[in-house]
């Protein structure tokens, strides 16, 4: 390695350190918010459940044991009880966490890709603005769940189609948020400076406009995780998403509603799980918005 490459790599390391510093700053501000910590802990628990599901549970989530059906929580070996087929609810809950996280991530990332591209184009090119935004308005005209149901009706019921439906539903909101940020960023003088340097539109959009629009996109993505998880559960509850015996939380509630009086834990436990996760992503999204707000950069 020549001395030059050494200095260059040292330089890039120090550059990374600076980036890291910004990240740490945001992180520290985030941790000042008590609610955010609660939310982060819940999300962390869901992550652990997702990664370590086989270690955490003793039973196959789909294995029926009719002899042990409808056991109440607190039973030996089944601390959260069992459902009407004698399946361990804890196992189903843990595997359900995996599904809800994957569906949420999938739907949000697909929605982000579509929304960011449309938003960038609409915000940057005035000619495309009208066309793209009318298309977005068209998507907005449908209530979210109805739009998702329509898409599933066309594509057929399955978890993958739920991901697609929810991502399409996320596109218009995301596109509007991105467009708004692009409109304010593109008026900045540094964009004009890049134009006068002869930079291509692609370079300006992805290297200069997009990096300066990240804060609202991150907040949107976090909040959207909550909506996506809730919508997946709703669609599965309605029988449009995960099909039995998949241990999806919404599907678990749907299966449990007939046993609401005899074994209320069949719907209460997955219900609480959904509530906690949605709550967690919402408070973390809120806290992120505060932490990323440039106005807050002034204190400390």
């Amino acid at each position: 390695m020549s001395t030059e490459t050494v200095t260059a790599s040292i330089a890039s390391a120090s550059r990374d350190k600076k980036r890291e510093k910004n990240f740490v700053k945001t992180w520290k501000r985030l941790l000042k918010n008590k609610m955010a910590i609660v939310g982060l802990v819940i999300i962390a628990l869901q992550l652990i459940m997702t990664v370590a599901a086989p270690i955490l549970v003793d039973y196959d989530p789909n294995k029926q044991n009719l002899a042990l059906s409808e056991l109440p929580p607190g039973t030996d070996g089944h601390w959260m009880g069992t459902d009407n087929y004698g399946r361990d609810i804890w196992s189903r809950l843990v595997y359900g966490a995996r599904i809800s996280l994957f569906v949420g991530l999938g739907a949000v990332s697909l929605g982000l890709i579509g929304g960011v591209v449309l938003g960038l184009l609409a915000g940057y090119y005035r000619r495309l603005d009208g066309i793209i935004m009318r298309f977005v308005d068209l998507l907005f005209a449908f209530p979210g769940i109805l739009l998702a149901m329509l898409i599933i009706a066309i594509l057929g019921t399955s978890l993958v189609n739920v991901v697609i439906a929810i991502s399409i539903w996320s596109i218009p909101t995301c596109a509007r948020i991105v467009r708004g940020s692009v409109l304010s960023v593109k008026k900045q003088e540094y964009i004009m400076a890049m134009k006068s340097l002869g930079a291509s539109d692609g370079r300006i959009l992805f290297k200069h406009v997009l990096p300066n629009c990240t804060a609202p996109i991150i907040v949107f993505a976090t909040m959207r995780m909550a909506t996506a998880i809730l919508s997946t559960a709703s669609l599965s509850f309605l029988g449009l998403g995960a099909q039995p015996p998949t241990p999806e939380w919404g599907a678990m509630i749907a299966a449990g509603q007939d046993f609401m009086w005899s074994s209320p834990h069949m719907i209460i436990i997955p219900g609480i799980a959904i509530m906690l996760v949605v709550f967690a992503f919402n408070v973390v999204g809120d806290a992120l918005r505060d932490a990323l707000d440039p106005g807050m950069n002034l204190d400390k």
Partner: protein
Amino acid sequence: MAGSAQVLYSVKGVKKYYPVKGGILRRIKNHVKAVDGISVDILKGETLGVVGESGCGKSTLGRTILGLEQLTEGNLVYNGTNISGYSKKELKPFKKEMQMIFQDPYASLNPKQTVGEALEEVFIIHTNLSGKERRENAIRLLKEVGLTEEHFDRYPHEFSGGQRQRIGIARAIAINPSFIVCDEPVSALDVSVQAQVIKLLQDLQKKHELTYLFVSHDLGVVRHLCNRVLVMYLGQMVELAPVDRLYENPVHPYTEALLSSIPRPVVGAKRDRIRLQGDLPSPANPPTGCPFHTRCPIAKDHCAAERPEWREIEEGHYIACHER
């Protein structure tokens, strides 16, 4: 500037109108005439000052000349090539020749990019240099504008206004342009820093044989830096003259008023300041005839009717006025 000087950039009858849209159908109702018929030859190696009130179109003129705004009318002839109407692709080799230094050093640098990245990017756009060569060149540029290698990995918010403007200048001279539009490069800076930046601009001009179009409303700076000065009013040319002649013997009544507004740093000095009556008319609805007649102390009836001719009163000294 001697009369034999070569013309680098010839601006011919340039107009830039912005449409004003209104109504439900967003029809074009009117135009804001930001730049309304400017013709001037920019000579190789000179610094041409452009002065005028806020909103007189001087910045728009600078941007239009660089092809950052679409021309409404007129021709731009750079070094003998008529580049008006060129597509973005055709303009790219010319963008290498012409650069811009911006007014606000806080806004003209991408806050998410380190200084090194910003400078290297210019080479990425215009050259095929390797990463190592780009870095070397960027560091050379930093040193040239009075910064050091340590500044390479810092973000813009870590710099003072003057330092940022130096970075902006480094970026502008990175690919050895011949022509630079300076859009009020020092007006956002402290007076002490202004002097340093102006000195830097002068040094760079000598070293690289640069030609400047210096847009400013600071008449003191213009006198210090420029060879010739163009006075603009409501998007139109009012007076053009070599700097000393203009400051000592302004002919157009608007120039007279403008120059009389310069504060004099002499205790007890009597100032016969010419106060203009009325407000600056809207460029969307400029007065007929001479644009200045509504506020002109010597206006006659025909000033409102006819647009004054652009004429040479002495060698190199042009004005547009019926009365002088």
